């Protein structure tokens, strides 16, 4: 029987295992953004991916359109009935927006957490190994995208930007299994209830909203939106509707199962929201100064 590993190969094997562990450790570190060599590789690979996936996406959506053609009549009927309501709604929204702006001027608070500027992006790849629920979009730092920004479709929130390079960014979907994947959210109702969107129930296909006070009454069907607290998410992005309340293991808080408004599958076009108020915390240098001053007291 031939020897499976010679000495030299054994050394190479052991060397690579050490490299493997080091690299995994490096990439699991809690870091704000990826390093510049990674960005460079991402841009180069993303360039090729763009060339490949744009035509493929076009072909795919062409077939999708053909499939949809069959339901055109029913859809048309439905849309026509919506259209009548829409005109009324639109005029209401315009009036309310104007009111809101005027009132804000009176209060001298012209910017709000809900203001954002959407950046359109096309999905160029979905992680083919399907372990991490990551998608890659064709907009990056050069278009003003930064890590932790909210990503949504027309229906609602789908995820947040995990890392950016010059021309691409990677988006982590809300359905990803990652303990750092949290979004501050609120349940709309007579009184606003705050909680955290944290985790995804694979079997029920529901998001879990945790840390809801146990005495709060939540009804089925209430809307869940982002709260705009913490980070760079704008306020008021639709997440979904409450379907079920379950007490948590210690009975101190409740968990709501939230049916996501947007589908996490087969995404083609998404919007990245760039919030107008971002400077919540002082710059890092200023923060240090504050600490020093406190120590001095």
């Amino acid at each position, binding site marked *: 029987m*031939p020897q*499976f590993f010679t000495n030299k190969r054994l050394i190479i*094997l052991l060397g*690579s*295992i050490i*490299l*493997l*562990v*080091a*690299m*995994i450790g*490096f*990439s*699991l570190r809690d870091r704000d953004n*990826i390093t510049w060599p*990674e960005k460079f*590789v*991402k841009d180069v*690979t*993303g360039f*090729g*991916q763009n060339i*490949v*996936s744009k035509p*493929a*996406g076009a072909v*795919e959506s062409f077939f999708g359109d053909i499939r949809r053609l069959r339901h055109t009549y029913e859809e048309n009927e439905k849309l026509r009935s919506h259209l009548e309501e829409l005109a009324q709604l639109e005029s209401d929204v315009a009036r309310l927006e104007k009111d809101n702006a005027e009132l804000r001027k009176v209060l001298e608070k012209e910017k709000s957490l809900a203001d954002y500027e959407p950046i359109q992006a096309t999905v160029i*790849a*979905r*992680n*083919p*190994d*399907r*372990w*991490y629920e*990551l998608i*890659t979009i064709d907009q990056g730092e050069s278009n003003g995208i930064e890590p932790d920004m909210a990503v949504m479709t027309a229906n609602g929130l789908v995820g947040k930007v*995990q*890392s950016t390079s010059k021309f691409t960014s*990677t988006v982590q979907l809300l359905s990803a*299994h*990652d*303990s750092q994947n949290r979004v501050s959210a609120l349940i709309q109702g007579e009184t606003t209830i705050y909680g955290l969107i944290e985790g995804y129930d*694979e079997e029920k*296909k529901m998001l879990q909203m945790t840390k809801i006070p146990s005495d709060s009454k939540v009804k089925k069907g209430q809307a869940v939106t982002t709260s705009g607290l913490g980070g760079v998410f704008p306020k008021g992005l639709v997440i979904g509707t409450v379907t079920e309340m379950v007490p948590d293991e210690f009975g101190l808080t409740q968990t709501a199962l939230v049916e996501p408004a947007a589908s996490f*599958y*087969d995404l083609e076009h998404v919007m990245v929201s760039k919030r107008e108020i971002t400077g919540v915390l002082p710059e890092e240098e200023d923060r240090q100064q504050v600490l020093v001053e406190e120590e001095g007291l």
Partner: protein
Amino acid sequence: MKKALLPLLIIVLFYSDSVFMIFFPEQAFNGAYIPVPRFFFIGLLFMSVFFDRNTAIKYGFLFGFLFDMFYTGLLGAYFFFFPLIVYITSKLTKWLHSTLPVFLVIVLFDIALLEMMIYGLNVLVQRTALSFEQFAFVRLLAVLVLNGLFYIVFAIPLRNAFVKLKKVFD
């Protein structure tokens, strides 16, 4: 000039995984099965057997690294597993005569090995909550079926391509 066809073929295979994902509806089978394309990996295995093992290992390192950086963000996983499995395959094919049906079994074994190693790694770094039974039913079976089909369709073209390329390089 014809030598440039080798990297070109590998690049096409590399992107074929994600192109498949564009066409494949993710909610097929109601999400009960998650078939993962491993077309690039199959190409790499063909390369190791019908072209040259050491070149395949080098390509495995390079493209494994690209895969890690661009798609998964977990550096090191494919970078390490691709070349390792190519090496194991080259040892296996020395003992087993590599006709295409026998090679199918080897390829499926390799893909199962890769899936299990990646699963193990994900459990280790706590990026998944799947139990092993769930993993075996939801992913492993579907992956083997999908890639088995790919093998049946593309085995002969891939073998011929690499045999021709070998002649060009010799």
